[in-house]
C-alpha cells in the first residue's frame, strides 16, 4: 500500500473508493461520502486536527482546495511555485489606506508548505491575556506546555545547523549584537535544513517539516482520506445541527467540476482567517455575538532593501535564521528575509534603468523585514459569496512602523550599508545615518506605506463569552452543534510572533476536545 493510497486528486474523480451515488442525491452527478468528521483545509490547523482525530480512531475526510504537490516537484522556479502553491498568485489585497497585500497557501499542506518555518510558542503574556480578558479556558502557558511539546516533536522544531546560516542573517545578528540588542536564533520546523532558501516555494529537500510531510502522511496512515482539488461551497445543516459539507471539484481551468456532498456529524473549518468566515457566511451561519469576520489582525510587515559594498549572496543559507527581539515589547520583531530576484524586482519602487541598476546590485543586497503586532483590527465581509478583507492601519501602528524602519536602517548603516531603499512610496532612499535621523522626525503618510502580510488572524475569535466571541474556548462555533474552527481565525488578538505553532497547538486542543466528547478514542495522547 502506497502512502498516498487515500489521497485523491481531480484526476481520480468520480471513482473515489468509499463514495456513493444515491438515488436521491442533491444533484444527479453528485458523489457522496460518509464519515465522522470533515476537515476543511490541510494547513497548520486542518492537517493537525485530521491526524489527531484519525489517530484517535475517527473516520476523517480532509477537503483541500489546492492540489497535491510532493516534495520532489519543488524547484527554485518561483513563478511556477506561486501559480501552483499560492492562492490567487500570492497577492490578494485587504482594502484600506494603505492596502495590505496578503498571501496564503493553496495546496495540500496549506501555508506550511510556503512559510518560513518559524516555530514559536505563543508568548506567555498573550496566553495570559486570552485567559484573563477573553475567558479562554485552560490556555495559560502551564496548561499548554504539553500541547506545544507534542506539536514540536511532530514537526521537529529545533535550531538551524550553524553552517546553513547565510551572510545576510549573520549580518543581522552581528548588527544587533553590536548595538547590544536582543537577538535570538530562530527555532524552525526543520531537520537538517540544507539552506537552499527555497522555503517560500516549497522545500525541495523535505527538510522543512511542513504538514505535507508530517501531519498529512500521519493522517493518511491512520486511515484519513484527503480530497485535494476540492472546494467547499458551504456547510450543510438541519436547523443548527451540522450535517456535513457540499462543494465541487476544482478543474484545471478553475471551473466547477463534479459536485460532492459529505455527510458528517462534525465539520472542522481550517481554511484560514479569510476563508473560514467566508464559508460560514456562505452557509448562513450567524454568530450571536455579531462578531463573525470582525477582529481581523494582520501583523503588517514592511521591508527595507539595503545595498552593501561586499557581496552578500543572500540566496545562500536558510530563509530566516535570527530574529531581533529587542523591541518586542513595542510590538516590533526584525528579521533578514531574502527573496528571489524576480519578486525583489517586482516589489522595488523603481522601473526602467533605475530598477535595472539596482537589480545589478542584487548579490550585494540584504532584505530585512519587520513584523508589527498591530493594535487596529479589520474585517472580513461577504462580497457576493466571496470573502473580502478590509483593514485600516492606525496612526499609532503607522508611527511604530516608521520607528522600526528607522531602527533597522540605523543598524544596517552601522554594518556598512551604502544605500537603503524604504518601503514608503515617494520617500527618497537613505544614504547615511544622518538620513535616518531625519526619518525618525519625518511624518510619513500612511497611504505611502507598502504593507504585506502572511499572518491573518482573529476573524472567528474564541473566548468564553457568547456576546463577544464567535467560538468557545475549544473552537466550537457558538449557537451551532457540530461545527468547529481550528486555524488562526480563533486568535482573540494578534500574538506578535509567527503563528504556525500557535495554530497547531490550538488545533491539537480542538481535536482533543472532539475525541473527549465523541466515541471513545482507540489511542490516547502520549
Amino acid at each position, binding site marked *: 500500500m502506497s502512502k498516498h493510497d487515500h489521497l485523491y486528486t481531480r484526476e481520480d474523480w468520480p471513482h473515489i473508493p468509499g463514495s456513493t451515488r444515491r438515488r436521491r442525491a442533491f444533484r444527479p452527478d453528485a458523489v457522496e461520502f460518509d464519515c465522522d468528521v470533515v476537515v476543511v483545509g490541510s494547513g497548520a490547523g486542518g492537517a493537525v486536527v485530521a491526524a489527531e482525530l484519525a489517530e484517535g480512531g475517527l473516520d476523517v475526510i480532509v477537503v483541500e482546495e489546492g492540489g497535491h504537490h510532493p516534495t520532489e516537484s519543488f524547484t527554485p522556479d518561483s513563478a511556477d511555485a506561486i501559480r501552483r502553491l499560492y492562492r490567487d498568485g500570492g497577492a490578494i489585497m485587504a482594502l484600506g489606506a494603505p492596502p495590505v497585500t496578503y498571501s496564503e497557501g493553496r495546496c495540500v499542506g496549506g501555508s506550511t508548505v510556503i512559510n518560513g518555518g518559524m516555530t514559536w510558542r505563543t508568548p506567555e503574556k498573550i496566553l495570559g491575556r486570552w485567559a484573563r480578558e477573553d475567558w479562554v479556558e485552560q490556555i495559560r502557558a502551564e496548561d499548554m506546555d504539553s500541547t506545544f511539546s507534542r506539536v514540536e516533536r511532530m514537526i521537529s522544531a529545533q535550531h538551524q545547523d550553524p553552517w546553513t546560516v547565510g551572510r545576510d542573517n549573520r549580518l543581522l545578528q552581528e548588527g544587533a549584537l553590536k548595538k547590544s540588542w536582543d537577538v535570538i536564533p530562530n527555532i524552525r520546523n526543520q531537520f537538517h535544513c540544507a539552506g537552499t532558501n527555497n522555503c517560500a516555494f516549497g522545500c525541495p529537500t523535505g527538510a522543512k517539516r511542513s504538514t505535507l510531510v508530517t501531519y498529512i502522511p500521519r493522517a493518511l496512515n491512520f486511515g484519513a482520506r484527503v480530497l485535494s482539488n476540492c472546494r467547499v461551497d458551504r456547510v450543510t445543516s438541519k*436547523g*443548527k445541527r451540522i450535517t456535513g459539507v457540499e462543494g465541487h471539484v476544482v478543474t484545471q481551468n478553475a471551473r466547477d467540476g463534479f459536485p460532492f456532498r459529505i455527510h458528517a456529524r462534525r465539520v472542522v473549518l481550517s481554511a484560514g482567517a479569510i476563508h473560514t468566515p467566508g464559508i460560514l457566511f456562505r452557509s448562513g451561519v450567524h454568530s*450571536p455575538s455579531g462578531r463573525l469576520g470582525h477582529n481581523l489582525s494582520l501583523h503588517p510587515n514592511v521591508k527595507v532593501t539595503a545595498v552593501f559594498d561586499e557581496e552578500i549572496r543572500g540566496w545562500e543559507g536558510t530563509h530566516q535564521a535570527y530574529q531581533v527581539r529587542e523591541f518586542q515589547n513595542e510590538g516590533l520583531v526584525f528579521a533578514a528575509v531574502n527573496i528571489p530576484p524576480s519578486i525583489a524586482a517586482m516589489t522595488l519602487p523603481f522601473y526602467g534603468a533605475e530598477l535595472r541598476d539596482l537589480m545589478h546590485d542584487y548579490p550585494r543586497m540584504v532584505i530585512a523585514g519587520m513584523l508589527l503586532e498591530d493594535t487596529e483590527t479589520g474585517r472580513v465581509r461577504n462580497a457576493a459569496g466571496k470573502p473580502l478583507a478590509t483593514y485600516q492601519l492606525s496612526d499609532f501602528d503607522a508611527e511604530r512602523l516608521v520607528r522600526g524602519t528607522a531602527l533597522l536602517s540605523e543598524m544596517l548603516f552601522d554594518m556598512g550599508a551604502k544605500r537603503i531603499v524604504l518601503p514608503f512610496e515617494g520617500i527618497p532612499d537613505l544614504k547615511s545615518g544622518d538620513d535616518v535621523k531625519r526619518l525618525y522626525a519625518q511624518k510619513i503618510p500612511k497611504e505611502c506605506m507598502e504593507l504585506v502580510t502572511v499572518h491573518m488572524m482573529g476573524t472567528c475569535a474564541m473566548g468564553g463569552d457568547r*456576546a463577544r466571541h464567535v467560538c468557545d474556548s475549544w473552537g466550537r462555533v457558538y449557537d*451551532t452543534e457540530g461545527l468547529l474552527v481550528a486555524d488562526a481565525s480563533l486568535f482573540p488578538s494578534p500574538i506578535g510572533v509567527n503563528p504556525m505553532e500557535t495554530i497547531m497547538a490550538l488545533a491539537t486542543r480542538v481535536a482533543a476536545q472532539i475525541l473527549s466528547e465523541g466515541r471513545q478514542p482507540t489511542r490516547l495522547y502520549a
Partner: protein
Amino acid sequence: MSLATSEYLGIAELSGKELEKIMLRGGTPEPKDLAGWEYRGLNIAFWASRSPIEKFIKGFYLGQGREAGLVMGYNEPVVQNGPENPWIAKPSDADPKRFGFYRMERVDPAAKDNEYLHAVLLDYGKGGNFALDPAARLRDYLVQVEPGSNERLLGKAYLAIGPARIKSNYFLLERHKETSWVRPS
C-alpha cells in the same frame, strides 16, 4: 412572605441590550434541578407595568403518567401590586389557579425552536393546554443569570404563529418557594 431581592429588581431595570448579553452569557439550567420549585416572575417590557400579567409565578414539577420522566411546569396569576411588594397568588396562596402548562426540555439544534442552544425551552405547545388556548402559542427560553446557580433565571418569550416565531419580551424569575404540586394524570 418573601420579597424580591434587590439584585432581582436591579436586573429588571436593565436595558434590552444588557438583558440580551445576560441571555447569551447565561448558564444552562438542569431541568430536573428546577422541579419542585416555584419562581416569582416579572415580565420586562414597556407594556408590562400597565398589564394584568406584569407579575406571575412559574412552577416546575416532575411529570407523572403520560408525562412521566419529563419536567413540566405551570403559571399562576398573582396580585398585580408592583415588583416591590410580595407575590400573592390568586385566588389564594393556599389554592392558586394554575394555567399555561409547558414542557421543559433542552433545546434541540435541529428543531424549529432553536434560538438559544444553551438555554432550556419551555414549550407551551407540548404542555397539554387546549389547542385554542393562546398560551399554547408561547415558547420561552430560560438561562441562569449567574452560570451554575438556579437562584435567578432570565427568560425570553416568543410567540409561535404557524412557522413564524415572533419575539415578545424578556422575563425574570427568582426562586420563590418549594412546592410538591403535581398535575393529576
